[in-house]
């Protein structure tokens, strides 16, 4: 399959941009061009393309059968089972099972796009989409590899909006965004990886610096990818939503998840945290806001971890963030009780307190990455070596 650093991908971007802009295509014609581009993208990996198409086709059938909450539950289970099996094909018995051929590329984002539509259609928020628009939306050729998690209404609004010819300013801004993305992802991130190595074999402050640089590497790599995808999106008239907003400047973990992988954070908030928290606060935990919050944050972030990779390290990483967010809420509640309303307002406005909180938040995030990418025992060993 074509990757962002291959000329073929950029030839496809230029071809699509010229086609949709020269002819001012909107609606179904533009969708058809995007979908053909997705077919061209997957032509180098036809099996992957067919398997993703199969998942998407299931999603489209699912939109039409089983209404209401049961429909959401059944289809979420089916989609989740396919998602987990694709990562652990060895559990399927028999030689060379079909799923063993299933590469992971693209599925996590297809999974979220399909689930979002299933939830919205079953909840009556929007009608079943037109088939062409549906398949174009769930298989976006320029953002299928690593997102972001765009919502269908935003995609549809852009698809039906008139497309102006590309003016010089827009073109230059898009190219600058792409160059900036490559600079972050292919140059700075790679210099960091080659220079530091991220073996985490040191001790004390040197090790802490390596952990912090590792967090910087992840940010540069991922946000660089987003810059490239957004720049390409501007050229082809399908700009994905922004996904980063200087996340390492966040004052606490709750704020962090509104500035890091923003579209995923919003998806988790809207489709998991809010419904679960609403259920708990209306029923079993009525009047116990903090308890309901702690449970909901924990469940939501554990799911977030498993979505990244269905294994123990990522579950631990998600659970750590759930625990961290719960700790933020408990800390704020305790502080407000201890300081009183007026001094709490002063604390919130204090730059010094903000700087300390930002530093602590960044260190937590940086250390948490160890638990995602190392075994739990190795992550603990690295932590031990810090002291």
């Amino acid at each position, binding site marked *: 399959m074509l990757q962002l650093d291959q000329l073929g991908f950029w030839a496809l971007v230029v071809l699509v941009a010229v086609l949709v802009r020269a002819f001012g295509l909107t609606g179904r014609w533009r969708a058809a061009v995007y979908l053909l581009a997705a077919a061209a993208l997957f032509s180098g990996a036809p099996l992957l393309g067919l398997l993703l198409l199969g998942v998407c086709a299931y999603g489209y059938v699912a939109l039409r059968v089983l209404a209401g909450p049961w429909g959401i539950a059944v289809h979420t289970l089916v989609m989740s089972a396919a998602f987990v099996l694709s990562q652990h094909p060895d559990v399927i018995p028999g030689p060379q099972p079909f799923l063993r051929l299933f590469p992971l590329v693209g599925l996590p984002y297809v999974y979220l796009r399909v689930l979002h539509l299933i939830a919205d259609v079953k*909840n009556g928020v929007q009608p079943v989409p037109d088939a062409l628009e549906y398949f174009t939306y769930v298989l976006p050729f320029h953002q299928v590899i690593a997102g972001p998690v765009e919502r269908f209404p935003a995609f549809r609004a852009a698809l039906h909006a008139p497309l102006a010819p590309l003016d010089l300013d827009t073109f230059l801004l898009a190219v600058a965004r792409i160059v900036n993305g490559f600079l972050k992802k292919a140059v700075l991130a790679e210099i960091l990886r080659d220079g530091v190595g991220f073996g985490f074999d040191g001790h004390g402050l040197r090790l802490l610096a390596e952990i912090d640089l590792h967090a910087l590497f992840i940010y540069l790599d991922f946000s660089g990818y987003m810059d490239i995808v957004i720049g390409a999106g501007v050229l082809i008239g399908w700009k994905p939503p922004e996904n980063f907003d200087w996340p390492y400047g966040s004052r606490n973990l709750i704020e962090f998840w509104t500035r890091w992988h923003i579209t995923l954070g919003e998806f988790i*908030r809207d489709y998991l945290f*809010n419904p679960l928290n*609403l259920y708990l*606060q209306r029923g079993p935990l009525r009047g116990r806001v903090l308890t309901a*919050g702690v449970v909901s944050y924990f469940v939501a972030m554990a799911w977030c971890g498993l979505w990244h990779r269905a294994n123990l390290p990522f579950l631990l990483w998600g659970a750590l963030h759930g625990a961290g967010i719960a700790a933020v809420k408990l800390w704020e509640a305790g502080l407000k009780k201890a300081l009183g*309303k007026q001094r709490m307002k002063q604390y919130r406005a204090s730059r010094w307190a903000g700087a300390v909180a930002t530093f602590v938040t960044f260190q937590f995030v940086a250390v948490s990455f160890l638990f995602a990418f190392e075994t739990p025992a190795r992550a603990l060993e690295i932590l031990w070596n810090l002291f």
Partner: protein
Amino acid sequence: MDVHLRLQQVFREVFDDDELEIHDHTTAKDIPEWDSLMHVSLLVAIEGEFGIRFASAEVSGLKNVGELRGVVETKMG
């Protein structure tokens, strides 16, 4: 008491701030404590005050106090 004043009273109780003033254009960014957890608490408190029930999609889709007031008024008939 009109809907706006009743809403303001709920906001003051939920955010524990007797001086809090809300307007149609007020958003979560204007109230430091209005995060994802307090948003749900706020809606549950509004449900209790007005005797209404929000749908899941409404919990996530509200952009500001004006939209919230509009949904409450629609549900009250």
